[in-house]
């Protein structure tokens, strides 16, 4: 059972990690908890279903396009909701984020209806349903797909941040916006692109969850968003490797908690893990503790 729970935990943990990275990147550059990020994840799932059912696209194309749409949604979100408030207190942005979250949820409800809908399973590649049985666990092609996509994206994101000019600009903006602007970096463009990258990864996560659990509904982003936020905090908000590790740890803690302790408290277990980590390592696994200044709120 242990190995199977590990597989279960890694699957959901990888997904949490993908979403958590979106939270943490945005927080890194503008110190905003983007609560509407869960909704981008939900939209990603809906976009892909729409592409597959209405436009008859093959799965991989829909996957890529959903990520593009997620990126566009992320940018629009920033442009419409957050950019006008760039100079306002952080609390105003935070409340706007919550407002956008509620707005997007209800918009999706209006467009696609509130009934949960299945992912068109016929569109999925055949190897997704192939199951390999081992002594103590079984694993499907879909598990492997989620693992590999998660790993590819994480590695890609790391390269993007560490090796490219954009990554360098992003890190500079995260450190000090004014100085970055003085050095000739277009801060607003960096922020917009950060939202785009976060949106694309969120949309990919939404698509994979929708297809894996076979259920897509307008409120699906809420719980996933909260969990991913917990993962981001666990890893140290603002730290990308932290968010990745936080997601995986949270996923495994949840699966093990539900498997060995009480299944009723699986959500509670994940939050308990978060709280315990914050008590003993307040900055999370990789976060840097910054002294709160008066200006920040």
């Amino acid at each position, binding site marked *: 059972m242990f190995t199977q729970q590990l597989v279960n935990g890694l699957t959901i943990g990888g997904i949490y990690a993908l979403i958590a990275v979106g939270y943490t990147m945005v927080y890194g550059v503008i110190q905003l908890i983007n609560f509407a990020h869960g909704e981008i994840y939900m939209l990603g799932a809906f976009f892909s279903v729409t592409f597959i059912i209405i436009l008859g696209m093959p799965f991989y194309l829909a996957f890529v396009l959903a990520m593009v749409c997620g990126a566009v949604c992320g940018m629009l979100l920033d442009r419409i909701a957050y950019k006008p408030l760039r100079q306002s207190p952080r609390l105003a942005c935070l409340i706007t984020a919550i407002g956008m979250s509620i707005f997007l949820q209800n918009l999706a409800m209006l467009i696609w209806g509130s009934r949960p809908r299945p992912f068109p*399973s016929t569109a999925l590649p055949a190897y997704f349903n192939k199951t390999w049985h081992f002594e103590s666990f079984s694993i499907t092609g879909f598990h492997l797909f989620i693992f590999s996509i998660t790993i590819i994206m994480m590695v890609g994101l790391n390269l993007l941040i560490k090796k490219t000019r954009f990554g360098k600009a992003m890190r500079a903006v995260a450190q000090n916006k004014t100085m970055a602007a003085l050095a000739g970096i277009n801060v607003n463009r960096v922020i917009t692109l950060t939202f785009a990258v976060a949106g694309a990864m969120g949309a990919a996560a939404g698509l994979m969850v929708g297809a894996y659990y*076979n*259920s897509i509904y307008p409120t699906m982003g809420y719980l996933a968003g909260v969990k991913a936020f917990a993962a981001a905090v666990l890893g140290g908000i603002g730290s990308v490797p932290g968010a990745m590790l936080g997601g995986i740890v949270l996923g495994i803690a949840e699966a093990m908690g539900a498997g060995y302790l009480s299944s009723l408290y699986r959500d509670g277990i994940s939050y308990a893990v978060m709280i315990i980590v914050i008590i003993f390592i307040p900055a999370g696994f990789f976060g840097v503790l910054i002294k709160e200044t008066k200006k920040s709120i």
Partner: protein
Amino acid sequence: MKGKALRRGLILGLALVFCMTTGVLAADTIRIGVASPFTGDLAAYGDNIKAGVSLKLKEINGAGGINGKKIELVWGDDLCQPKEAGTVASKFANDKSIVAVIGHLCSSATLAGMPIYVRAKMPVISPTSTNPTIGEVGKGWFFRNCYTDDFQGKYLASYVVKDLLGLKRVAIFYENNDYAIGLKDSFTAGAQAAGLAVTGAEAYVAKTTDFTPQLTKLLKDKPDTIFLCGYHPEGALIAGQARKLGFNGPLFGADGLDNIDYIKIGGEAANNTYMTVPFLAAAGGPAAKQFADNFKAETGREVDWMSANAYDCLAILADVIAKAGEDREKIRAGLAAMSSAENGFDGVTGLTYFNEVGDCSKPAFVKKVEGGEFVTAEK
């Protein structure tokens, strides 16, 4: 500038409130509240209730209403959440023009609303809340047009698992709410009496999408069948994930699973699922078949038990109001007077009459999913 905008907003708000309150003043209609989840995850159920009562409403008002007065329905969206149910209940209870309530759909919502209705002396008839304890909380103001889980759980154990499926080892996977816990308890009692072995019981919370940890734990004990004790959105996902984890035996559940979405979401995995339902058009009399046809013509979809029960709820209320008058107290007395088979109401879901706590005894039917469709399950 700011002040002006504020003033404009205020005026607009006041105008809105005024518009809303004036609607209430029209007294030539009989107003009945209908409480269900019309949005949210269980909106599909609310849709069923709406379709059922709307069909009856059309029939009643088309025939001239009750004693010359038209019926008007007031919708209350409780999202199947106890908290929201309390708000809806207060709204209905305080609106003096509402004489009775059809609802709530979910047992936990009904349990939350009932104390408020009792204080306001509002008669409530639920088409779907099956939790056995509601009758006591209702203190004579609650009636239901469906069986209780006491009956349903035992029936599932003694008939569906033991006789129909002929299986012994059952794993229970239940949702953590009043409906599913009541059902699980009565099933467990029934299973004990029927000599079945319950290999494990795990709980989940509504809106979860990942059930693999609990399923892995349940499947470790090699059950013959899994009891999906909850509602269809989660049930369909559990079915899919159980199949992915290599479980190929039959699944079964209660009325909470009965929705076409169970098949739509579950897909292939939904096949070989058995469920008890209070209404099955194919197994009912001519009135039931006529109703099923009308329902299909009106909504374009197959009838389900919730719509049928909701349809009958409004029919019962209309009947009582016509006889007793349009007053909360009198309607309650009228409903309570339907206490035996002779003075019961014969609707599309069969004969309804209430015992002292408002429960009624109705038969259960069993259907199963086969080849992506619901069919009547026969031994």
